[in-house]
């Protein structure tokens, strides 16, 4: 079996975008795919938009996905889902985490943060399938907001019709020992939920 897929993960500095994309890349490698991943960091700690591209394939050349060629777009924040939406291919799947992180430009300037209804209607137009997950709230309910990404990855694994094993092996290897159980729980909440809107 050749695993071929393009992923885009987008969030805001501090949301763990890079760790989540490392996990996606590791899973592909574990399953025998060639894998490349590209991200931009440097100033991300200071509230900037963060994106990470992950590609699985028999032989991957570019570490960057082309616009309109992403199969699975994991948006960790509402505004960021809109910002990068043109990367998703027609018919592609969006996993949208219901969270707003308000940029300072809306505070001292006249920029308007788009209303949730507007974001949802736009992404539904552009994506083949939209999964809306309040990952942060679920994670907080489980006891730690930091496991929000495991919720999203669980949902992603289900969308890809993959078994949980490889994902869990990688997550276990990547997160601190004391948080393994919580991440496993979060992964299954994401995996077993029905989030399609």
């Amino acid at each position, binding site marked *: 079996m050749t695993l071929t897929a393009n992923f885009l993960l987008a969030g805001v500095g501090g949301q763990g975008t890079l760790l989540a994309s490392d996990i996606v890349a590791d899973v592909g490698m574990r399953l025998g795919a060639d894998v490349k991943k*590209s991200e931009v960091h440097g100033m991300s700690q200071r509230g900037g938009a963060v994106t990470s591209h992950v590609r699985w394939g028999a032989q991957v*050349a570019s570490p*960057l996905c082309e*616009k309109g060629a992403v199969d699975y777009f994991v948006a960790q924040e509402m505004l960021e889902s809109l910002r990068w939406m043109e990367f998703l291919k027609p018919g592609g799947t969006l996993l949208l985490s219901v969270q707003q992180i308000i940029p300072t430009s809306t505070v*001292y300037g006249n920029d308007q943060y788009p209303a949730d209804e507007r974001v949802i209607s736009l992404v539904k137009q552009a994506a083949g399938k939209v999964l809306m997950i309040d990952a942060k709230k679920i994670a907080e309910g489980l006891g730690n907001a930091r496991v929000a990404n495991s919720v999203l990855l669980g949902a992603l694994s289900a969308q890809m019709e993959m078994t949980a094993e490889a994902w869990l092996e990688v997550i276990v290897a990547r997160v601190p020992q004391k948080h393994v159980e919580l991440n496993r729980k979060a992964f299954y909440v994401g995996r077993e939920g029905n989030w399609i809107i």
Partner: protein
Amino acid sequence: MSKKLLSGNEALARGAWEAGVEVAAAYPGTPSTEILENLARYKEIYSEWSSNEKVALDVAIGAAYAGKRAMATMKHVGLNVASESLFYASYTGINAGLVIITADDPGLHSSQNEQDNRHYAKFAKVPMLEPSDSQEAKDMVGTCLELSEKFDTPVLLRTTTRTSHAKSIVALDERKVLPKRAYEKNPPKYVMIPGYAKRRHPVVEERLLKLAEYAETSPFNKMEIGDSRLGIVASGPSYQYAKEVFPKSSFLKLGMVWPLPKKLIADFASKVKRLIVIEELDPFFEENIRILGINAEGKNIFPLVDEFSPEVVRKAAHAVGLVDAPPIERAFDKGALPMRPPVLCAGCGHRDVFWVLRKLKVTVNSDIGCYALGVMPPLTATDTIGCMGASIGVAAGMRRGDLEGPNVAVIGDSTFFHAGMPALANAIYNQTAFTTIVVDNRTTGMTGHQGNPSSGMTLHRDMHPEVDIAQVVRGMGIEEVATVESRDLDEFEVAVKKAIKSNKPAVVIAKTPCVFVTSHPREAYKIVEEDCNGCTMCFRIGCPAISKSDVMDEQHNRPKALIDPVACVGCGLCYDVCARQAILEGALKQEAVLTTHVA
């Protein structure tokens, strides 16, 4: 042989370890920083943050002279700083191998320019290799060191952001242990006085010819013959993008980007009908191929500025009919979205400094570091930023240029030691009267909180004696020196005014400890909703913890302020600027503050 997913920078560190590097030095700079951070994990290698890139390169050169394989790493503009050392090392050659990594930043993700450092190879007459993925990055470090020793030359290895920060699968090897090469005194080789240097120049020219011969057979220069209607010359990430867009065309992939393999290029050109070069930034290959009398196209098709991506290459190729399929345009009307420019962190001490400087309406000659963000709205306090250390020299020049009204130089602790001190010595020497504000946050923040001479924390997180900035500037001859906690806005303002009024070269050291290194003494602050009338004063400090509330002030019909209790780290600047006492101080923290907990 195990395989691992590594970033280009991780692979470069691994490659250095495998190739038997024993000394490595660097100054942090995006996108190069992680090379040394990863290398520091290998205990067999002596590695250090140096005070600037030139010093780092001199340290590496010295180690190579002494007989150990050495490496210096830096961002592209770091090589400008280190260039003088590159040029003498080109003449002296080395003893044990020396590789210099330059990480370029097309697209200016975190830089003041986009310069193409391939020119340095030609300029300094040294070879340069450029990887296009992590495996090549790892392998090329070893090759660079072998070439260095074989041809007696420093060797440049160029990456870009997309090689340094992209991950791909790498096969790991063991470390080679090499015997130390004895150092032999040889002044005509290692002493570059004119008489000796003159004799080295022909050696350098001859070396370049031999390297060009070698380039013909380098395993990193390879032809991939496919459809002969189009032949593409490319290197680095551009090669990968081109492979996506032209999967069937013929390729000449250049891993050794200088000197160029003339015969191989001519051979390739003869095999294809149309020759194009796909290269980011400057037409370096294109021009040098044309010099060979070979007709190559390139910048007539592909952009000269900004970073490439698969769609940039596809769009340009499609515009001239090289490919049939245009990039996929997914047009839907999402309107103008709020941007997320990088901002000073919640609780950042630099915010206090720029708040006061803006109030004083002085001209601000600033510098490279987190505090460069003082130029962003709403603070917008900064007038000039050029390069590392430029603040003080430019401030002196503006003084001599009879600038109307006072001006101040603003420079960080790490940048002060990097390139600020010579400019300050110059101001003292020439008695140019202006004030330098050293914003001492005890860390090199923007690149990820590395230590520097001011903090005394080394690459390995050992605590060495701190180089005390106040003592340094007093020792240099500054009479007007004040050290203040700029969190106390009044105290800081008084100190700056006094320094300016002294009409002498003066220094104010503003202690602005980074929130990643220390913590503020109070818990999160809170808006007292009934007292807030939405006056927007606290919005104007640009704190990411403050936003507009959904609750409106009825009288003025404007939103009240809201402080995010998680994001707020309790600095209290909003409390200081609030004219209505509508902000409640956070409770004093129980635990000890100002403890180092570097991220």
